[in-house]
């Protein structure tokens, strides 16, 4: 199985989630993170002091999916999170050794 982690823009969450639903993604979890990348934060002034907003608010999606589904999920995320502008974010893929559904104790694929 694969663990897919995607950093996307705040206001893209709804779109991406709905799209993932359409392809029957059972579950995911979302975390608010602060991102730092090519897209540099703007300069701001607070009480006369200039300072750089270095981190931008981003959304981190976490999904565990079966190997077979991985590529499809990646594509869906990419298509829906994309604005074409710098700062769109990234998708990370990891190997996921095992999953357990706490409620039932099921393991592996059927726990997804």
């Amino acid at each position, binding site marked *: 199985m694969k663990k897919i982690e995607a950093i996307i823009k705040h206001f893209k969450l709804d779109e991406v989630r709905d799209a993932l639903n359409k392809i029957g993604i059972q579950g995911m979890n979302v975390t608010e993170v*602060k991102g730092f990348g090519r897209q540099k*934060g703007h300069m701001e002034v607070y009480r006369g002091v200039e*300072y*750089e*907003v270095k981190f931008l608010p981003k959304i981190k999606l976490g999904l565990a999916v079966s190997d077979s589904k991985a590529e499809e999920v990646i594509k869906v995320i990419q298509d829906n999170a994309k604005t074409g502008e710098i700062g769109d974010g990234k998708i990370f893929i990891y190997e996921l050794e095992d999953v357990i559904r706490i409620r039932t104790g099921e393991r592996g694929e059927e726990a997804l």
Partner: protein
Amino acid sequence: KMKRWISLMLLILVLAVPVTVLAEDAAPTVAGNAEAITAVQKNADFLWTLVAAFMVFFMQAGFAMVEAGFTRAKNTVNIIMKNLMDMSLGAIAYWAIGFALMFGVSKTGWFGTTGFFLSDYAADKDPWTLAFWMFQVVFAATAATIVSGAMAERTKFVSYLIYSVVISALIYPIFGSWAWGSLYKGSGWLEGLGFIDFAGSTVVHSVGGWAALAGAIVIGPRLGKYVNGKAKAMPGHSITTGALGVFILWFGWYGFNAGSTTAANTDTALIAVNTTLAACAGAFGAMVISWIKFRKPDATMTLNGTLAGLVGITAGCANVLPGSAILIGLIAGVIVVLSVVFIDQTLKIDDPVGAVSVHGVCGAWGTLAAGLFNAEGVTMKLIGVQLLGMGAAFLWVFPTAYILFRVIKATIGLRASAEEEMEGLDLGEHGLAAYPDFQAHTEVSGAGI
């Protein structure tokens, strides 16, 4: 000649006065002037009584903030709705029934029987009835709202609404008629004995506090509050909000105490000074004792101490000297800390905001203190009457409130479901979180960390 004219014009200028008597006169008369003077003083009395009432009303905001700040975020909408509705329903109930029971003509001395639905005003159109009602209704609302804090985070909304109608319509007014009835048309047995409770340490605060005690006992502690017999800490979600509430209450309290003259006179000065000093001393007392007991100056306790000082001086604000006010407040501040700990850990009664200690216990202390520190001197009889009044309050309010809550529990139920409580009453009862879209935008503070 000229002079006459001037003065005539001037007199007519006394707009506020229905100057019927004067109208006929060509020139001002001594009697006419005397009447005009009374009218002006009367206007001043109305002005002060109403301004004070507005300040006391504002205490509702204070209670809402204190209770919201000292409870968890997931129950904030619920506690705010309770504070809003106990005022809203309470005022209507007090208009319909409460005021009549409290200040209507009372043959027995146990409750009034005239003036339902403000019918006194309908009858004689005396605006004072309205000014007085305005001042009294916000007192009733204060007594009613005290309970919400003690029963916070677990009480079913609809059950709370019922309670707040009953206390505003019956429990509070009936006791009130014993001690204050004669301020209007009533005549209570307790005031007859010389009971001193100028602004309501007992009449308002103890009454609210004992009702809160009954409620907290009947409903039981919040889930997870007592884990195998040990009390667990459940910190509120915003000290800032709670502190703002305390400052608002303190501000409103000036109307509460000084306004209880319901007349613009010079007695208000002593009352204001005593109120100030007692509040300050209460904060100080609570801070010191919490510092000693808990190793650090505890903010929530100090805030409670401020309120304790205010509750403590409420009864005696007009009949003790400033020096005594400091002592009364100081002791109240110490009492409230000990009381909170005792109720929470020894009695194991879960009172999230310390309402019972602040209003019930310190209300009792204040009533006693009003006797002990009486500037005109203290007599055994006076102390006796004060104790009698304190006892009467407890014996009337606690049982009736206890029964009320039991009945509610037995019928429509008093407590929210366990799921609802764990998830928070906000979503369960109102379908709305208090901070649905709160974003800390912490990225900006990247600079600040």
